[in-house]
């Protein structure tokens, strides 16, 4: 199980701004180690953000996303106290879900 995400969600006007810092190696599969062996790919493939049982963001990622990815986006609606739930799944089928309260 990976380290928890850091999530910040704030109401800005009539929308909600969400910032997420995920903790993940995001290995591309292109790098080689000191022995010349390819380091196997290991990266997040799917990201879903759910607000009140409604998906507000769904993304498919590839190996070009940096290590410990930072994601920032806005969606219409959302009120103080609402919960948002963020889930990622990587290519090892490892997954992590974290929840945050909109402030």
């Amino acid at each position, binding site marked *: 199980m990976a380290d928890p995400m*850091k999530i910040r969600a704030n109401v800005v006007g009539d929308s909600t701004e969400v910032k997420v810092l995920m903790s993940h190696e995001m290995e591309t599969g292109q790098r080689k180690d000191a022995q010349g062996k390819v380091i196997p790919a290991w990266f997040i493939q799917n990201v879903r953000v759910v607000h009140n049982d409604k998906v507000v963001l769904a993304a498919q990622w590839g190996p070009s996303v940096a290590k410990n990815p*930072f994601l920032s986006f806005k969606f219409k609606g959302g009120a103080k106290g609402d919960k948002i739930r963020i889930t990622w799944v990587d290519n090892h089928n490892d997954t992590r879900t974290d929840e945050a309260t909109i402030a």
Partner: protein
Amino acid sequence: MFNWVEGLVAAAFALGLSAGADASRYDLGRTPTTAEIAAWDIDVRPDGTGLPDGRGSVADGQRLYDAKCASCHGTFGESTDYMALAGGVGTLASDQPVRTTGSKLNYATTLFDYIRRAMPFNAPKTLTNDEVYALTAYVLNLNDIVPAGAMLDRASLIAVKMPNRDGFTRQHGMGSVRGTPDTRAKACMHDCVANVRVTSELPEYAKGSHGDIALQTAHWIAPQAPASGSAAAIATAKGAGCMACHGVAKGVIGPAFVDVARKYADDAGAEARLVRKVEEGGSGVWGSAPMPGQAHVPAADVRAIVRWILGGAGD
């Protein structure tokens, strides 16, 4: 960041020493007041010496951080445009070291010192001690070093153990996250030059070409009630920069004050003429070197100086 802090400390020592050794020779500076020393003396040491009273919570720190710090350092301290504050813990010994405040600092008290000394970048030293404690707590929380509910004060900050407590190195560039050092600065331990010979220096003709710099330095004068008499006039003349070109007993570029006094000894109108001459400038009387107008000197000071000169320029 460390070299800045150390540099500051070193500079302070150097200033302190040179002020003590050369004060009489160059007549520079003055003894600082207790309040001034207190304002400068803000260093916090690894053992916590110098930490002020106060306390701050992670939650307070987050509010402050979002308002004053996040625009440069990123919401989670992740921005590498400036100094990344969080992340990279445990990577220093790897082939891809990530140097951040959290991963490379060896003492949390240094973080407090740095924030108090230098942050926010556009308005350093504007934070209260409580705010610095709160921000320190929040940055430590970003690195998962203290829990989200933590409240830091002097004792608890000293007790924080940074992940890199025993791994601090100086073998990399200090100024930039990815930098390489300017020099390894390794002391020569064998096969060293026995006698260092100076092989080049300022050529003879260039030595002393600026005269005595000490005499041309603008001197600091303590704010005080206007004194009277010769001592006050000399101080005023030094402060106004007269001594850059004039000596009391010996001429430099302009005439000596005693010679001026002698020349106008029996001239009743000399005072008014010389006051005008100081204010507007002149040349031709003592040689071709012109004296520029001294409009920056207050009229009362000019009159006092001229009176003192015409009175014989005595002590």
